[in-house]
């Protein structure tokens, strides 16, 4: 399914943003809010894993049903997960399309990665706190 991805702050993400190694942060930032009707179309339940792919890359997230997002769009808290999908294109404004990236969603059995795993995949070296 192709949808528009919006990103932004949520309270749980904001509460834990200075503790990015914490389980609270990882769970707060790795969710994808999706309209219940769209979930039905995808054939998934609340809590299922989905893979989002966009112009910048792809990542596995946990689907969370929400009626505050419109059908045809999803909301992902800002952070390293959503940014795994966004491209660096800024249209020469300096600002990426954080709130308007088209993404393809497919259900998946793959696990949701940790922040450290995401960074390792990009060429980093895991720091265990």
């Amino acid at each position, binding site marked *: 399914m192709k949808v528009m991805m919006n990103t932004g702050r949520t309270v749980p993400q*904001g*509460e834990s*943003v200075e503790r990015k190694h914490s389980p609270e942060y990882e769970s707060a930032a790795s969710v994808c809010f999706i309209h219940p009707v769209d979930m039905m179309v995808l054939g998934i339940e609340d809590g299922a894993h989905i893979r989002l792919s966009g112009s910048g890359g792809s990542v596995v997230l946990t689907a969370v049903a929400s009626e505050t997002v419109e059908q045809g769009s999803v909301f992902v808290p800002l952070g390293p997960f959503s940014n795994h999908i*966004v491209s*660096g294109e800024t249209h020469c404004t300096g600002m990426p399309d954080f709130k308007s990236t088209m993404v393809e969603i497919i259900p998946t059995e793959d696990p949701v990665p940790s*922040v*450290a795993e995401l960074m390792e995949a990009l060429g980093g070296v895991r*720091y265990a706190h």
Partner: protein
Amino acid sequence: MLIKDVVCPFCGCLCDDLDVEVENGRIIRVDNACTLGSKTMVGDDRLKAPIRRDGKGWIETTYDAAIEEAAQILLDADRPLLYGWSRTHGEAQGIGVHLAELIGGVVDNTSTVCHGPSILAIQEVGHPGCTLGQVKNRADLIIYWGCNPIDAHPRHMSRYTTYATGFFVKDAHRDRKVIVVDTRRNESADVATEFVQVEPGGDYAVLSALRAIVRGRGDVVPPSVSGVSREQLVRVAEMCKNAKFGAIFFGLGLTMTAGKNKNVRNAIELTDELNRHTKFIISPMRGHGNVYGTNEVFTWITGYPYAVDFSRGIAFYNPGETTAIDILRRGECDACLVVASDPAAHFPKPCVEHLARIPVVQIDPHPNATTHICRLQIPGSVAGIDAAGTAYRMDGVPIRLKAIIETGVPNDTEILQRLYNRVREAKGE
């Protein structure tokens, strides 16, 4: 020990009425703060000492050795990028700008991924604004456009707008109307008198239509604009014109969607137009605690609020070219100093991939996403917790952040000053 009137460093509201209970050098309770502020202050999670990457692992190092290595990395670079700054105090930001000047680097701050487009818009048409107290004391109409204060600035409504008692607004519930404009019915929309739901990417068209209606040319506006009926637009325009004092607060819903700076410009020009009828102001909802301070400090030193390129000696500015995202995406820079921010978490993947390829030095108190991709991290103290210094609120009001506990950790000013001195010495000055 109870410390009163503490300033919260979390978001651009810089609430300065926190009561903080400190025991044995630790913050154990925070009153008056929102959950974002109090969780941040109580749950502060620190890196204990400088660390450097050693092959496939990490080892602790000393401040002296770390500063020496950082200086060498910057000196060796042909196009160093110095990025971040918005979580530290102004005094450190100033040294950072001078460091960039000294090494011919590009210095940029987190505005780039926040209200950078708003700055571009202001540079085109200006900014009719005011301090937040003007809104609190006078505004009878509040518009939140493309922002969700309940999640991002949880006390904005109670301190300054919807629920705040002001001198001329004694009964906020009765005397203030609230309009929320967004692409989704967010939590803030639930408290609004009027909710305007715009199709994604439709803000520019809606703002143009409102401008036309306000200046009496509603006749050209089609029956529906980006999912909003003309009828609702006319109603909103009337509410605005009939207000005694209107205030538009806008967020990343305008800066991060197609049109970006032009969306914000259109909102500002709507405000200008409304000032021909009544008093209206507009203000960006600035995110990071001291992001506005970075703009102020950068501006008085270099003339530009962000994205300043010193590679030719003079200050050059052109967002879209000299902004951190663009430089990283294009793979231009060959070293990076990150201060008080976390680009690996908040930059798109292609930018982080480039960061992982080049030597990155991070000065930040917390282990974060950037930790995994940097070569070297030097922890400083936290502005507003164990470091004092200046921060600027989202409306430009400067406030002094307090050091409420003592940790003995050097602050960013000290670390950066040492780095600056070392680089200067190495350059033979």
